[in-house]
């Protein structure tokens, strides 16, 4: 059996197990093991123990459970509700009202959470009941939250970038900073679209009143303040090169505990519950990473990466055509594979090709995350669609249709980053530290 055929069998098995409903980490692991057995029989598995230890005894990945713990403390202590309340006073007077608050709230929560789902669920859980009761357009409400949630993996911290960075040995702090400008542009574009749409079709969003007094304005700022402190404390140190990503996550956790106790409802019982949830949720992500390393080990054992590089280079595509091919690939994959799976399966194959096209690995990290974001709101398995649908009484159809305009905006941001890589690279080039 040829190496190509063995690889195709492994990929088909992976897709079959995944879509059939097997738990994602095991749907990655089982084909990887079978692939290794096809390649070299039982001796090919002999490195499994050492490879598992080497991949998970990692200080870089230590920030995954820490960022997850931080986001969980913020959610469970009620601080995410507070930020929405404060922002609804400050941002809602703009055309689009609370729809604008959805995007701003998601952008801010994204800056302390590495996950799109956490962002969509935390802000969506607070926002949707208010949007429904105030007769906001249902499609726009759901669409803005599902799309706003995707900012969770573009704005730092981002689990997608941590995983990409650990696989490719690219600087995670630089990847984080590379996501900032595209993330802010996307936030502004989302808000501009909502504002324009609300002006053209006033029925989609009632006009909201801003703060009626100085005291109310100050209260709104006070609600936003804990998050501002947290973002500064976590990302400020990373950007200044004073702390590593993991240390930044530790500072974030400690600040979140402090802020949750002072401004939120963090009691010892709630703290323990946050730890329970963190263990369950981070176990899932860490196992995906571990099994992806096994898959990657199988790919490098077979030398598939080199073959893919030779094949793609042989196609003589120019840079733009290469990105277009990636766009097609990730659009299809985004409809079939969940986000982290998409990164860990494709990166070992595509990363070696980047050098031939002179593509900066940091810029590619941002492009990859944008592709993943698109996948998160693409039917049939776009996870954010289901997160939002599961916390309201609407139909999935409404959520899907609501995200269409945001999809188009994401394409625009993607094109901007591809044509002007400096949008992603300028900030990392000006940061201190590694």
């Amino acid at each position: 059996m040829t190496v190509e055929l063995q690889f195709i069998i492994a990929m088909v098995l992976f897709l079959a197990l995944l879509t059939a409903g097997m738990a994602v980490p095991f749907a990655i692991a089982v084909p990887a093991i079978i692939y290794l057995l096809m390649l070299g029989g039982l001796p090919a598995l002999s490195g499994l123990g050492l490879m598992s230890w080497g991949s998970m005894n990692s200080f870089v990945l230590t920030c995954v459970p820490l960022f997850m713990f931080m986001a969980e403390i913020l959610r469970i202590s009620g601080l995410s509700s507070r930020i929405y309340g404060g922002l609804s006073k400050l941002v809602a007077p703009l055309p689009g009202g609370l729809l604008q608050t959805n995007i701003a709230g998601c952008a801010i929560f994204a800056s302390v959470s590495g996950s799109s789902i956490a962002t969509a669920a935390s802000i969506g859980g607070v926002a949707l009941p208010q949007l429904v009761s105030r007769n906001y357009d249902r499609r726009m409400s759901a669409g803005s939250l599902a799309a706003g949630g995707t900012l969770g993996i573009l704005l730092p911290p981002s689990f997608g970038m941590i995983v990409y960075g650990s696989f490719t040995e690219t600087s995670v702090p630089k990847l984080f900073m590379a996501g900032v400008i595209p993330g802010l542009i996307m936030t502004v574009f989302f808000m501009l679209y909502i504002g324009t749409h609300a002006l053209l079709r006033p029925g989609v969003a009632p006009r909201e009143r801003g703060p009626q007094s100085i005291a109310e304005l100050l209260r709104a700022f006070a609600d936003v303040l804990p998050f501002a402190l947290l973002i500064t404390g976590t990302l400020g140190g990373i950007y200044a090169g004073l702390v590593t990503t993991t240390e930044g996550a530790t500072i974030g956790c400690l600040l979140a505990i402090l802020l949750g106790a002072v401004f939120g409802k963090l009691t010892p019982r709630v703290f323990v519950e946050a730890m329970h949830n963190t263990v369950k949720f981070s176990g899932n992500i860490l196992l995906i990473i571990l099994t992806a390393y096994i898959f990657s080990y199988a790919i490098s054992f077979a030398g598939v990466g080199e073959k893919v590089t030779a094949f793609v280079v042989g196609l003589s595509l120019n840079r733009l055509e290469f990105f277009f091919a990636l766009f097609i690939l990730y659009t299809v994959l985004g409809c079939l594979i969940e986000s982290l799976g998409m990164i860990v399966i494709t990166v070992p194959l595509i990363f070696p090709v980047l050098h031939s096209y002179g593509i900066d690995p940091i810029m590619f990290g941002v492009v990859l995350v944008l592709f993943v974001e698109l996948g998160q709101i693409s039917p049939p398995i776009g996870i954010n669609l289901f997160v939002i649908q599961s916390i309201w009484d609407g139909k999935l159809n409404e959520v899907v249709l609501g995200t269409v305009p945001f999809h188009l905006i994401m394409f625009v941001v993607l094109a901007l980053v591809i044509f002007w890589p400096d949008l992603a690279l300028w900030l990392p080039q000006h940061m201190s530290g590694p």
Partner: protein
Amino acid sequence: MTDATESAGAQAPAPHKHTVPEGPVERACKWACEAALLVMLVVIGTDIFTRWALNFSFQVSDEIGGYMLATITFLSLSVCQVNDTFHHVEIIQTRLSERARALSALFFDLLTFGFAALLLWHYIRLELSSWRFGERAPTYLETPLWFPRLVMAIGAAALCLAVLRTLAMHLRRLRSSPRSGT
């Protein structure tokens, strides 16, 4: 469709979540993971503080942080398995009858058990070789590597046990589901 309970903040349960009550093994693993999380916070937090305030580093936070991550990774496996918190793509599952879902879950559990048993075998081999050759970490602490690596074997063994428990649960589901039921 994907399980909507991935991460912090997810509030809605997945439509076909089948959990098993946590037993003593899973509870012990969970507590160990939580202890590892706290150790991580304390060790790394202390290092940041001493570096900032005293211009001094213990130079152990990287090493201990890595060990704690390995602890969380491997000991959380059984906790995730019994609580069904691993991601699932449910696009096909939602269209199946209850019986077909139980059957597919059984099949997946068998594959998972095979993988977990394979991991256990290789992790025990690694553990024994670390012990036999007296491997030590090339760090300031010179930690004997058999000790932190122990969590891999324990975690894989706990996962095997947890998969057997979920397998038994899916077998009961299969027996109780009607042959032509939806």
